[in-house]
């Protein structure tokens, strides 16, 4: 039932740095969500998640997060995922410093 499946991205935290990363279509972990592979097929999402979870010396806690297509690449749906693309709101720390 691909029609009811909400598109997903695979996301995790980098093992060494701890910061947020997304899985790209060419099997890299990017620190920029816009480079993530937007997956709209459930079976493919499950496979990509398994592949991500097997990279145990690269990332931690991989999971599928809802996403939607945007002008420059996938965008977060939930506010938690939005914060993960940015960093905390009380200091200009984390990803927002590089934007």
């Amino acid at each position, binding site marked *: 039932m691909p029609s009811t499946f909400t598109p997903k991205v695979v996301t995790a*935290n980098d093992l060494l*740095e*701890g910061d947020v990363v997304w899985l790209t279509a060419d099997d890299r972990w990017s620190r920029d969500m816009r480079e993530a592979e937007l997956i709209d097929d459930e079976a493919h999402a499950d496979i990509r998640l398994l592949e991500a979870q097997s990279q145990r*010396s690269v990332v*931690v806690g991989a999971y599928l997060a809802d996403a939607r297509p945007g002008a420059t690449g996938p965008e977060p749906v939930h*506010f*938690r995922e939005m914060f993960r693309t940015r960093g*905390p709101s*009380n200091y200009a*720390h984390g990803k927002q410093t590089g934007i």
Partner: protein
Amino acid sequence: MYAYNDFDEAFVRERVAQFRGQVERRMDGSLSEDEFRPLRLMNGLYLQLHAYMLRVAVPYGTINPTQMRQLAHISETFDKGYGHFTTRQNIQFNWPKLRDVPDILEALADVEMHAIQTSGNTIRNVTADHFAGAAADEIEDPRPYAELIRQWSTDHPEFQFLPRKFKIAITGSPNDRAVTKAHDIGLRMVRSADGLPGFEVIVGGGLGRTPMVGKVIRGFLPTGDLLPYIEAIVSVWNLLGRRDNKYKARIKITVHEHGIDEIQRLVEERFAEIRPSYSGVDQDLLAEIKQHFASPVLAERSVDAFEAARRADPSFRSWSDTNLAAHRVDGFAIVTISLKKPGATPGDATAAQMRTMAKIAETFGYGELRISHEQNVILPHVHKADLPAVYEALREADLATANVGLIGDIIACPGMDYCALATARSIPVAQEIAERFEALKLDHEIGPLKIKISGCINACGHHHVGHIGILGLDRAGVENYQITLGGDGTEDMVIGDKTGPGFAYDEITGAIERIVLAYLGERLSPEETFIETYRRVGIAPFKAALYEQGETANAA
């Protein structure tokens, strides 16, 4: 203060060395995250939303200037130049890198600090009254007892795999500043009818998903029976506690399910069995520990300089009105350094501020510093004659905010700006509320008021016991804030009442303002505090202010 003995030193160093090896094995992939996770948690290392977080214990809130400087050094070398003091008297570093963590632990061990056992299903870091050893109302300094419990419980073989985590709080004063009724075990020092010091033992308190006010299991426990009695409680719970469901495992649920009378019967029975096996070694140890907590010699001097500064400088007067507490010795004061400047993150201190506080403690405060669960820093012994100089030094470091106990002195957990468990943000809510009332210039007019904010049901921000409590939730993918009123975290602990539907992120500050304005309209006199007014008039006028604003405006 307490100095590590050789055993502690060896133990901490060994743990650091072990963890260094574990981190290496994790980095080369030979340990999986599932294998590594419990190991890092035992060493205080969490993976949060944007980074790792290291939680360092400040046992019973006591820290010396050398340690404070080392925290400053760590924050600059391995983090982003600041640290966050929490409601559990810990300090958290929000941005460490995995490969640096063993070095951070090594640097902590150099000043006799560690991050051990601040996680896992063990007996956690014991919290104590932050005015311990200084408060005018104190019967005895509770910290030697806290230290005794720490030594006894650290790596105690029977208590490493408890049904859940276990938290103990202790106060040496009948006036409870350590929220003892919200802990698994609370110990509140009282005197017996014939004047002997002992503890009122409270069990089964807790906040979180199922908030409960702790119940008195023993009205008076002689101080000499403390360890066997705690051991009896923990061991009864260790057998009865529900391991099948993590939400039902805390002792508060055990007490609730079996009833306090049954728990009391079992504990007293177990206590009678255990008590004879305590040969008195614990009391020898306690006597030794007490020497490490001996009060500094507090020299008598004139307080004229203090009185003169109060007359001459209104800003000093205002600060000394709010940020001082009564000391047991005449001429001295307990100083609370507010880490709550309006607009700042509650509980955060920069490396420079940590160094300033260390310097002031050394120069004017007999080398003593404390961390409060209200996320402020305490100088427990300052002579009043030195207060003008202390105030000046604090001002230069942007630490002289005069708002302790007022509306801007907000407790807020890290929330969704850092915490992986959060359902909403709490820090920016605290920032906005403090700034709003700063702009309104109403904080002194409003008087004593405790706002406490948690970013999820785990209630690290103690929202249930805030006069005004705020709980951030995720309602259908939007941040939503539920308000409770009338909570109280003292010895008369009360869980606050929910007002009704929650408020959106951009509505919550306005909602708090309406509550406060309703209080100002309802109070009988400026002397009647918010909580007193609430107890007198109940929730109705506040609900009206929150939810019937439109109608009121039309009627007016």
